[in-house]
């Protein structure tokens, strides 16, 4: 095993351990010691609005594939979808979901059905769709436009993998004066989201959806683990930089270099 491989395994084990540790330690999931993120507050708020208004929330899960790193943002989007469905189960009209990737579409439908069943929305007609609206980035955006307009959508939540086609989705929301909560892992799309979405999720905030929407202990533990690891990274960087200035070649670099 190479140094990189070993370091990689250490990272995974460390993450796993931290997550388990925090999920055991944090016995009260209700107690959220996490900074407020406006976009998630907004989601909660919009769920209430949808309930009172008899409108729908629209969640689009992006077009990211499942077999690459993009999958994570779609998976994070799915856990947000799950929470939103659970929370908006009192809506007359359950949320509508749209995706631009077939696998994500299947997963969205499974999530919807699983969640709906868990909360006993037996009426299938009311079930949110989770449909695949388009298979290329812009056809997905165009299909989602239709979803935004044709349904009685009171808020749009775009969480998943998007490219610059997100512009269409965020501005469509803006045109209809419906709040748009959006987050993605693709950097240029993030920039667009920041400028055009009413409530942007920046960077890794996207992955914290489960924790902020009450998906359970393990999600809170996840972001605690992320915080711990964040500081590890910071110390590794600062330490290495310091050593580098001092002219010392260090172990860290060798451990990571294999992958560069």
């Amino acid at each position, binding site marked *: 095993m190479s140094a990189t491989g070993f370091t990689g395994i250490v990272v995974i084990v460390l993450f796993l351990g931290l997550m388990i540790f925090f999920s055991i330690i944090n016995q009260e999931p209700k107690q959220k010691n996490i900074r407020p993120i406006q976009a998630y507050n907004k989601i909660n708020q919009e769920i209430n*609005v949808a309930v*009172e*208004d008899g409108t729908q929330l629209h969640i689009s899960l992006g077009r990211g*594939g499942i*077999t*690459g*790193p*993009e999958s994570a943002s779609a998976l994070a989007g799915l856990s947000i979808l799950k929470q939103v469905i*659970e*929370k908006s*189960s*009192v*809506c*007359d009209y359950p949320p509508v979901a749209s995706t631009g990737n077939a696998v994500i579409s299947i997963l969205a439908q499974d999530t919807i059905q*699983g969640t709906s*069943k*868990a*909360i*006993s*929305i*037996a*009426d299938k007609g*009311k079930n949110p769709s989770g449909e695949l609206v388009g*298979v*290329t*980035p*812009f056809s997905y955006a165009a299909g989602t436009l239709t979803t935004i307009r044709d349904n009685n959508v009171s808020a749009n939540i775009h969480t998943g993998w998007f*490219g*610059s*086609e997100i512009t269409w989705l965020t501005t469509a929301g*803006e*045109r*209809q*004066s419906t709040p748009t909560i959006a987050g993605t*892992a*693709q*950097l*240029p799309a993030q920039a667009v989201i920041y400028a055009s979405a009413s409530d942007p999720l920046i960077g890794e905030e996207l992955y914290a959806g489960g924790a902020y929407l009450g998906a*359970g202990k393990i999600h809170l533990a996840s972001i605690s683990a992320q915080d711990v690891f964040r500081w590890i990274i910071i110390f590794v960087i600062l330490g290495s930089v310091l050593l580098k200035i001092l002219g010392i070649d260090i172990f860290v670099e060798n451990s990571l270099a294999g*992958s*560069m």
Partner: protein
Amino acid sequence: MTDILCPTCGRPNPDNQGSCEFCGSPLGTDDSSLRNDLFPAKDINAPGRHPPVEPDDSSRLDDFLKPTEPAGSSLRNDFFPPEENDDHGSLEPTGLNDSSPLKDFFSSEDLGNQESIQPTEPDDSSRLDDFLKPTEPAGSSLRNDFFPPEENDDHGSLEPTGLNDSSPLKDFFSSEDLGNQESIQPTEPDDSSRLDDFLKPTEPAGSSLRNDFVPPEENDIRDILEPTGLNDSSALKDFFSSEDLGDQESIQPIESDDSSPLDDFLSTKEIDDQNNLRAAEPLEDAKPDSEPTSFSGDSGWLDMLQDPNSTIDEDQESEAAPVSAPTVDKPGTDWLEKIKRLNKSADEVEEDSSFPDWLSVTEKPEGEPKAKPEEPESPAEDVPDWLQLDDDDDQLNDFLQKKDLYDSEIKSEDSGETISEEEESQAPAELFEEGVEHKKFPSWAAAQDSAPQNGAQEIPEELQFLAGVEPDSITDQIVDPFQGEEEEFFDDLFSEELPGWLTTASEEGAQIAEDEISRGELPGWVEAMRPVVESSDMTGLSEDEDYIENYGPLAGIPSVLPAEAEFALDPEQAAMKPLDLTASKSHQEYVNLLKKLIGEEKKVKPITKVAPVQTQRILRWLIAIILIITVGGTIIFGGTIETKIPPEDQVNSSGYGALFNQIDELFDGQPVLIAFDYQPAATAEMHIAAASVVDHLMEQGTYLSFVSTQPTGPVLAEHFLTSTQEKHGYIHNQQYINLGYLPGESAGLVSFVIAPKKIIPLAFDGSNAWGSPPLVNVDSISDFAMILVITDDPNTAKSWIEQVGTHLKDTPLNMVVSAQVEPLIQPYFRASPQLLSGYVAGVIHSLNYEHLREQPSLASTAWLPYNIGIIITVGTMFIGGLANGVLSLFSRHRARQIGEIK
């Protein structure tokens, strides 16, 4: 304390006794036993004192189930149809295990039964007994009534008994329900309906229907649920909003096939489970206290009913008996009549119109409730009490006791007997000899009582009626009179009364409860019934008072009830009294809190929805017009413009410079892999950026292999060749090969790096991909002379660098990227292990590349309109941004000023 006279030996027995202490004969066999059933033992007066027989919860439940059902478990099955069981898994995440929901459900179910029945009968056990007695031949009918027939459908075993036998019972129940809801509900603030009011704000539709039709259990459940968890209750909403609601009660008995109600029902069940679970744990201890209070009252007037001449304890005489006695006489007949009327035909609709009258009267309490302390506990706290009641219910114990008696009786009886026969046989002789004797009971008891009798006596009539003759009319009947007023009415009632027994049930309230009990006050829920009686008196039914007194069948009443009682207690006072008594400071606080909560719930929160801004659209138009006119104008009139070659040092340190140098070194026939990894939308920019580079490659005579990790890539490659490289006239398979689509995003890429031939065996057109001479020797990706990735996505670029670049030996990895990708890839170009050998980013680099090649291409053509577009955009953005910024500051300032003024 009243004793029950043994029917056999005539000696007095404590009324919590199931059988005679002296002769051992069951006390339930004579009329007194019935009374006992109806009105449980008074011994329970004293808090903490329990009836001799105290089966535990499960046994109680078992008992409850056993007699009513040949197969006890079937009831459970009904409650949990198979599908629901399936769902348990999915519920688990919320912390439910499979068994707990059941338990909870049962507890809530029982509560539901109790509560729902309470209105007609103060005592759970007796109520249930009554229920069971007539229904016993077909225990399942009870179920049928409580639970829509569909549930029964799920259990073949039940069907025959349940559905076949139960029709009379159904009648019974339907009449029961009608009775409860039409005539009794008004008089008795049923918890459920009260809580319904609670819920209404959140449920605009069907609430009134619900009140009337929803099986009592569900009402109760909702009561428990809604306040505690609005979120979870959607299913309930569904349930209630469903069209079936109204029909369930009226139609269910007739039709068993409908499946939708089942779903709805299930949904409520699940939610119940969750909520109950949440609520259940904390409540265990409180209940015993609450029950006694309720009984103190019951027993009091029970005694009177039982034996007007018998000696009545002083306490009871002075407090309890008086309270109940007067109420008993008057409305009893009213109720019965009402019920009868209701059952008989739809004509009653008109008659029912009288309800609004008395309802309006009952609305009186509206003002009072605000001050009433009983309600206070927050919904969440309520739940526990309920559950407690369920768990250690004295009433239930009583009930069980009695049920045992009944069981023995019933068992001895021929099961084939008609219900009426049974009833008659079981009914206390005294009561039934006179036929109308039951009217002696207080209205609410009588109503209950009458229901079974109706069931028994009027079966044929009612069967017809239920058989669908006029189910709708019933619905109408029931719905109309109550809809608006009822809500308020019950709301009031709720706010007043619920607390009565709930608060006493709570640990905190235990002491208060004791006090109350010692004073012989009526428990809250008994109280709850009284105002209705009172109200019914006031609503024009009071005319009947005299009538009742004088009426033949009631002639017995004066003799049954001590005259003093009537004088001693004004019914109105009685109704008010407990409310005063139960008001403690903490209760008051609770009331206020709850009121606040309810009030907030009712408040329509203004949903701030920004109206589509017209200026927004105009601004967009303006931007569009400016851009299109300037750019379009430049295209039409502008032509091309001479640009200068950038300084040499800049070229040398740039990506395009490095790329140019590499391509310049390639020679004829060398295989070059080009990845067309941009989406079709980016065609414009990528064509501009890549045209010159690919042109350069072709000029060098390299053999091009196209691949793409996007499905649209292969055709984009073809399009690229035909639209930008026409002059080269490259022929597929001879000068280039389109390897086609490489699925699986970065994973596919990794596979391709290691074994390209294995991963893409066939070219896009199905031909052999690797047959052409330049590719024969290519076994791994490192065998290409160069890799050029054309992409507009930073992550695709990153994937190529991370997954492919790291595996390359001497093969340089280069890129043509969109402008947005540049910030993310340039570090790979600058870093020391140079993973990216060179790159062209966007139109700007491309122009420079063209300069290097000294062959103007697309970039040169597009340069002028492109730059005009940039500068116009910058201007528009700047002006727009500045204007918006000023506006924003201005509005902030104004907001601040307003804030200061405020």
